[in-house]
């Protein structure tokens, strides 16, 4: 069958709302698999005082199964396995030029992480309820998390309200703790609540707004840093908007997402995601995308480790708490067959302290650039 005419498309669209075909629950099962290669760029050697100037290389394999069970239920199983190798920053020192330089670890041997998530959803006429558990394990970190969520449609099916709660509990057991004077065992806990409202604006546009609130407590510092003391509590919240618009004359969809994040460590950030989903014929789709990120530095951020401060006073020279921004540009190609979809994407990410909306005094030497390549396969049956 070649492409469907507009008449057939119109009739199909209308038929979809008939009760016999109501897609409140997945009628078919889906298996998705992805393989990804993540590579961080080396740090310029003049920024490294000691240690390797290489950074992380990570391979990620993912598998996901979504399957209907009976008439009202569905099951989702999601598993990830990643292997990583490379060095990471241990600390920051002022160098001879007065700018901060990095103390890096030696390049590590391969480490791996495995995670498994299982969730089940119950569908009724206008609502769905989901319960899920997930576990993640690597040699120095174990995490367990629970999620409960619900979704409710309004009578006209043009609006949907969703609410979710999650709780997670993590155990850290840093390697070589005694050797390097790291905390041997620690725990942290996270609780969050989120809500969203999705509204169909027209036959070609939909908008979702969301909000989330999270509280963390426990050991929140980075145990692998030489000197990293963070508060033992953190409250963070974020609001987001996601807009989708289909342009009939271009046979393409625009995605525009915005998120504002704020926490009580002094960091706030803006994230913008923009992508254009261009259909080329019936089987092929090309998606160029761009992401802009900008964050302010944490209130206790120090450009370099300060050993003169009292040991219980919060400080960290972790670049992830500095003021900086990042630009990510990518392209994804998708090939669709009736039962299969194949996709290939490449994204290039570049950090720069000049993008930060509350810049740190110095550009952090550990700001990273990475390349992420992803191959995805989906099978529907």
């Amino acid at each position, binding site marked *: *069958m*070649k*492409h*469907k*005419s507009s*008449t*057939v498309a*119109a*009739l*199909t*669209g*209308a*038929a979809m*709302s*008939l*009760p*016999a*075909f109501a897609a409140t629950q997945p*009628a078919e099962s889906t298996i998705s698999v992805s393989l990804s290669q993540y590579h961080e760029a080396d740090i310029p050697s003049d920024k490294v005082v000691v240690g390797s100037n290489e950074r992380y290389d990570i391979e990620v394999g993912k598998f996901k199964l979504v399957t209907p069970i*009976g*008439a009202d239920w569905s099951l989702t199983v999601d598993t990830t396995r990643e292997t990583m190798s490379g060095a990471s920053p241990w600390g920051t020192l002022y160098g001879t030029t007065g700018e901060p330089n990095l103390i890096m670890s030696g390049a590590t041997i391969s480490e791996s992480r495995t995670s498994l998530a299982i969730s089940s959803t119950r569908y009724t006429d206008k609502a769905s309820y989901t319960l899920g558990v997930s576990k993640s394990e690597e040699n120095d970190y174990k995490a367990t998390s629970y999620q409960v969520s619900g979704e409710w449609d309004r009578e*006209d099916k043009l609006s949907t309200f969703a609410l979710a709660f999650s709780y997670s509990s993590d155990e850290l057991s840093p390697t070589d703790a005694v050797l390097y004077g790291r905390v041997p065992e620690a725990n942290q806990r996270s609780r969050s609540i989120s809500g969203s409202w999705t509204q169909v604006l027209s036959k070609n546009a939909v908008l979702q707004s969301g909000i989330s609130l999270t509280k963390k407590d426990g050991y929140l510092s980075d145990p692998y840093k030489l000197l990293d003391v963070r508060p033992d509590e953190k409250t963070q919240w974020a609001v987001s908007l996601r807009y989708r618009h289909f342009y009939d004359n271009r046979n393409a969809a625009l995605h525009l997402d915005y998120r504002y994040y704020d926490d009580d460590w002094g960091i706030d950030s803006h994230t913008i995601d923009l992508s254009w989903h261009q259909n080329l014929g019936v089987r092929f789709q090309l998606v160029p995308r761009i992401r802009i990120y900008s964050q302010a530095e944490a209130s206790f951020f120090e450009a370099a480790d300060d050993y003169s401060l009292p040991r219980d006073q919060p400080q960290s020279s972790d670049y992830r708490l500095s003021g900086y921004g990042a630009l990510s540009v990518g392209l994804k190609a998708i090939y669709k067959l009736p039962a299969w979809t194949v996709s290939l994407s490449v994204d290039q990410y570049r950090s720069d302290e000049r993008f930060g909306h509350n810049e740190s005094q110095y550009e952090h030497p550990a700001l990273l650039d990475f390349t992420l390549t992803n191959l995805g396969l989906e099978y529907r049956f």
Partner: protein
Amino acid sequence: MQLRYIRFKAMGCPCEIRFFHHDDAEAERLADICLTEIRRLEAKYSRYLPASVTNQINDAAGCDPVTIDPETSALLDYAHTCFNQSDGLFDVTSGVLRHLWHDGLLDTPPPSEFEKWLAIVGWQKVHRTATSIALPLAGMEIDFGGVVKEYAADATLALLSQEGVRDCLVNLGGDIAVLGRLANGQPWEVGITHPELPGQVIASIQVGSGAITTSGSYERFIRIGDKKFSHLINPVTGIPADNLQSVTVVAPKAIIAGSICTIAMLREQEDALDFLNSTHLPFLSVDKLGTCHGSLQKE
């Protein structure tokens, strides 16, 4: 896996359901729920049962709006799309025109009769909201006959599929919906009746998935003098369709295939073929001279 086969009469036609199942008791239960669903839809939309939704709506013609349930609302929404896509030819209010062309008529009715009946035809005159419908003029009628049989075939197939059946065929008077394959791995095979030679098959079609429906003037027709006309009447001119003898269409759902068949039968001359070609769906049409068109004739 055994082939289960039930034959029955529903919606005024011979019907059958074939499906593969390994368990006898379960197969019987499935056959029961299929029949229940078909009878439910038959009772709900039948013109002949006083309590049906159709009669509730028609009895209130010229009076207040009638509240309708989501399933009825969705079927009417679908009929509305058909009306738009067919430039007004597919019209569920055109049923009253059967009074114009009753059996035994010897000649064309006078213009005054046309005026009288066409005045109460027209989907564009109907008032609709998501939960109600109002027929503004007394005597106006809604007829679900153009969609409910095909919808029942799709609904029954969906029921079997949700119960885990992978291979089945539902045939309600020639509106057929299929899923999966036969035991030998071959697709379901459907024979299309020859419009001029009753009992004979003009084409045998292998249906991989989806649905196949046939509209023809050879089964249900209006006889005027010694000529046979299709029972489908043009809601604009009031004249029965007199172009194609039969149309068979393959589409993802029976309700879609059925609507395409009906619209094609109502179109005049070349418009019908142009329309069928524009859908890019496999079809087989037989015109008044017996000439066949469409990709299905090669099978």
